[in-house]
């Protein structure tokens, strides 16, 4: 083993040999990526400002639409609501400047829907639930799915391949909300195994105690299971499909021929090179964590960002919508940025 230099190691060696030249190149690469990041961010922030304002009807209309279902609404009610909501003043350009100032200060004002709560209050109570639930599940699904994909590719044709591949494809073909509803109905109502709504028991108060943690964990099982079931298949298939061609590559054959342990060949040689596409998807999935859980949170009454976003959009709640969209855009952009940088590290060819 010591006497043989295998391809990937050779690549590593070369990188260190020509370190100085490549470092300059890498810095330029990072700078270019940062520039692009800032430009995209500005564009996103601006679109974020314009889009809600293109929706017909104002936040007061949305509030009135709710009230009007109870009976006729008087002129005074409309006026009172407009004062309560503190609707934006000034022309569009002034609003835009004020908005940019808010974005920089991360001050998004008061929510229309949940008046008089501030957007900051709402987001800070909702975000932890989503980050923990969807974030952890996404990471777990990625790890399990990728490992299963490696296994499936390595044991191609055996039951270790067909079972996860077929099972994953089957489960991921269900719509998100349908899986959620089935779980909710059977595990929640028919068998009464798990709570059916909320992030913790009705009388619990969020705190850093063991009891609360267990309670919250218990309440998160059904939504977590939903995300796991529907996303696992994608990771398995993605990994398996890039792994198989890699397994046919010369350096893998060479490593096998040199008598390396199968586990080492599979993980260090084949999987490491095959993982790049899956890593991109992972970055995107992580970025989508904040906004990607609307339906699951909706079905399980889970007090996360997705549920908040749903309420914001249906009620034309500009301040809340803008803050949430900005968070989603930002997390996707940051995740992409990190993946870009990681790519540069994992695959030197990207930096050219």
């Amino acid at each position, binding site marked *: 083993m010591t006497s043989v230099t295998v391809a990937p190691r050779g690549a590593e060696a070369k990188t260190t040999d020509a370190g100085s030249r490549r470092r300059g190149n890498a810095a330029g690469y990072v700078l270019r990526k940062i520039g692009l990041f800032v430009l995209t961010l500005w564009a996103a922030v601006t679109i974020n400002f314009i889009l809600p304002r293109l929706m017909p*009807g104002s936040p007061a209309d949305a509030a009135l639409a709710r009230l009007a279902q109870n009976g006729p609404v008087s002129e005074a009610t409309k006026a009172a609501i407009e004062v309560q909501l503190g609707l934006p003043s000034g022309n569009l350009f002034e609003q835009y400047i004020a908005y940019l100032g808010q974005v920089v200060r991360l001050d998004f004002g008061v929510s229309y829907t949940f008046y008089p709560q501030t957007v900051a209050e709402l987001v800070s109570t909702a975000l932890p639930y989503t980050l923990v639930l969807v974030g952890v599940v996404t990471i777990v699904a990625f790890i399990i799915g990728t490992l299963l994909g490696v296994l499936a590719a390595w044991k191609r044709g055996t039951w270790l391949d067909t079972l996860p591949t077929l099972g994953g494809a089957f489960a991921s073909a269900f719509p998100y*909300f349908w899986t959620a509803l089935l779980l*909710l109905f059977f595990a929640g109502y028919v068998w009464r195994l798990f709570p*059916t709504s909320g992030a913790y028991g009705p009388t*619990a*108060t969020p705190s850093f105690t063991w009891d609360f943690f267990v309670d919250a964990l218990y309440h998160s099982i059904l939504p977590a299971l939903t995300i796991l079931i529907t996303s696992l298949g994608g990771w398995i298939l993605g990994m398996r499909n890039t792994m198989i061609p890699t397994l046919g590559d010369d350096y893998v054959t060479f490593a096998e021929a040199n008598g390396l342990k199968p586990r080492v060949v599979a993980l260090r040689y084949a999987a490491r090179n095959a993982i790049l596409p899956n890593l991109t998807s992972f970055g995107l999935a992580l970025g989508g964590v904040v906004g990607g859980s609307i339906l699951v949170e*909706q079905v399980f009454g*889970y007090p996360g960002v997705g549920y908040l976003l749903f*309420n914001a959009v249906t009620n034309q709640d500009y301040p809340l919508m803008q803050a949430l969209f900005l968070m989603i855009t930002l997390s996707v952009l940051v995740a992409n940025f990190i993946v870009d940088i990681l790519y540069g590290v994992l695959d030197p060819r990207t930096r050219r």
Partner: protein
Amino acid sequence: MMQTRRRLFTAAGAVVAAVTLAACSIQIQSAPDPSIPRDTMLVAADNGSPMFERNFNPYLANKRVASFYVYEPLVILDNVTGEEFPWLATGYELPDPSTIVFTIRDGVTWQDGEPFTTDDVVFTLELLRDNPETDTQGIWEYIESIESDDTTVTVKLQNPDVPAASLIATTLIVPEHIWKDVEDPGSFRNPDPVGTGPYQLGNFAPQQYTMDKYDGYWQADKVAAEHLILPANNTQLDVATKGYDWAYSFISDVDNVWVGAGNDNTYWFPPGGTIALFPNLTKEPFNNLDVRQGLSLALDRGAVGDAAAEGYMDEAGQTNILLPYQQDDLDPSIPNSGLIAQDTDAALAAFERAGYTLQGDRLVNAAGEQLSLTITTANGYTDWLRGVQEVQRQWGAVGIDVSVDTPQPAAYQLTLRNGEYDFAMGGTGGTGSLFRDFNSLMSTDFLKPVGEEATNNFERYDNPDAQALLDQYKVALDDDERTQIGYQLQQIMYNDLPVISLYYGGSWGLMSNAKFTGWPSAEDPYASPKTYESTPLIVLTSLEAVADD
């Protein structure tokens, strides 16, 4: 209905689940939480989206619903029967049409033990004047000044306006000794409410809160439930399975899903208003009465109601009166209680008077153009959409080309206000005040040109006769006189069709007799079964505990 709608949204999932339930024929059984004692009522009244904010300011749109169980009005107006219940006032009189004298109830205390006085009433009314954002009912549109002595509060109106009395009387009263120190009542969250009502806030958590009976309540002997539990999440499946005592929620297949879930479960779905089609009366040919009559006669309203509300709501009469609960207000000379039966031949005859004839399967005018129109309804109001689709089918059957437009609720509201539609689905009536029901529909005070936002009279009905009657109503002190004016307004509604009534909008009351009895019902319709606003006070003081056996 607002509550239903929000619940429908948040429980969109549960609706699908309920369908699964029916499809799988699995009978869900109610399994009450054994830790809830018999003197405690589980109520689906307040809906957190998805968590509760501790906001008990009775003047904010986002207040906790239980604020209505803490703060009381002078008078409660029941919207189903139109009956008034003297509450913090033992009654009121109008010596002339612009003066209201409220006699304030003696022996009432605030929940901190302080006595309730006329000063609290005056303070509250002035608070709404000084902070217009809290005056959501707009009572200061009518009030000129307020005076008081030890037992009465006298409100002087700017103009003679008898019906304004019941509006001012429903204002929720807050204690002066606490609220005088509140800096900004328009954004105050009032986390520890003190009112005169039967319940005080108990434990508050973001997913659930409890209310405890106030033992010093002025009619404490009538309050049967010692505690109320209000969870934040009340999906329809929750309501059916968790042993709720009282809920306000539309449930599909209610006999199987709700009544079937527990032996003691009952329901009462009285009308809470009328769902109608608002024509755009500034537009040809909808401003033509013959066309409106044709459209009206072409409808089988029963089928529309069945399609929209799964058969739970009846077809609505064309009088704007909620039947059978407001029968006393109905003009007896109007044929068939104002119900208009489908009569295709008469419809075609009416269309012919307007110059439209049936050619093949198209209803066309002299120029050969088909009568075509668009009905606007709000996206996500699935019951309305089903009703509109049934109308589309029925009008289509007499040769009219009907399309359906479903903007988002905010955009729908704007369309309605701007008058930029052909026909719009909308709710009307059901306020409990005959005057307000007709005024919001027909008063020329609200008239605005198309393109400008109207707050009422969206169909832009301009009839000086109707306005004259409304003006007469405002100064009429005599009950019989008001009844007669009401009859004439119904005649106008029935004959002139400013809007085309379709079916009643429901109040979806679900109750259980397991722990408490005496719920309002079709046999004993003493109050609306809804869990929000002030009518629950009537219900909460009418229940009796079931003896433990």
